[in-house]
């Protein structure tokens, strides 16, 4: 059970209050019609899936209902930071860029 700091409630809460959405910072293409099928597929389905640091989006579903991002290690499960929507991570690696 992860212990997650909600950047909006500004405190740690139990994992059961949250739901995970998936990889963070996936931006919807502004002009989907101009993309090739392959580019569109890449947006829809292809993910980094790193073994190591990962930026991922969560939602505080039972709490403030806000979405936010976190940088988490996918092997040790350590959470290095959580940050608000619209902000950039302060901890990155080559894999996560």
């Amino acid at each position: 059970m992860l212990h997650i700091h909600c950047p909006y409630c500004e405190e740690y809460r139990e994992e059961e209050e949250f739901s995970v959405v998936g990889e963070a910072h996936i931006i919807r293409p502004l002009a989907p019609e101009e993309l090739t099928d392959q580019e569109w597929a890449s947006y829809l389905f292809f993910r980094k899936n790193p073994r190591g640091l990962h930026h991922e989006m969560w939602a505080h579903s039972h709490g403030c209902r806000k979405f936010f991002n976190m940088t988490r290690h996918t092997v040790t499960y350590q959470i290095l930071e959580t940050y608000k929507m619209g902000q950039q991570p302060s901890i990155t690696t080559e894999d996560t860029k």
Partner: protein
Amino acid sequence: MSNSARVESPLEHADFAGLAALKINGGVILREAKLLGHLNLRGNANDPDFLKGVKSALDLDLPLAPCSSAQNANTTIMWLSPDEWLVIVDGVTEAAIEGKLRQSLRGHFAVSDISGAQTMLEISGKDCLQLLQKSIGYDLHLDSFPINKVIGTALAKSSAHIRRTGEYNFQLIIRRSFADYIWLWLQQSSKEYGLSVTL
């Protein structure tokens, strides 16, 4: 509404009046603060006009700190998220207060009457802390959950907003359709302490 219209809380079937008459001396005391007015208020906390508008409509400052609440004689405001508050007022006044809010607010805001959507349970008694901690993962110790703090959290397999009003006093805001489930949960979980119902 006409006077003939019958109004019922989500826990009407639990017969709290009958249970209160039993006068059980339990470690957990339950009271339904039923049929209050509940308004969901949305707006931009960084907009001074919004804050002013709320203040003038409710005669109460909007609580801006995360997980805080504010209260006066008739009104309680609970922080739900940076742009969302729950305003609890006396029953039947919600429409008028919604109107007042709509009048005094400008720009981007929202008010939704959700008085039918939820009810408030007041839980107290010497064992209430342990009872709640059975199904709430949040730390209810006074250090982390002082009086007037309010949190949205998971309560057993449902959700609730919980506000502390005293060392051994809590308000639980629960959804109407889950009320029966919470009532079952309460009865089961309080067995060892004894549950007394008050009106």
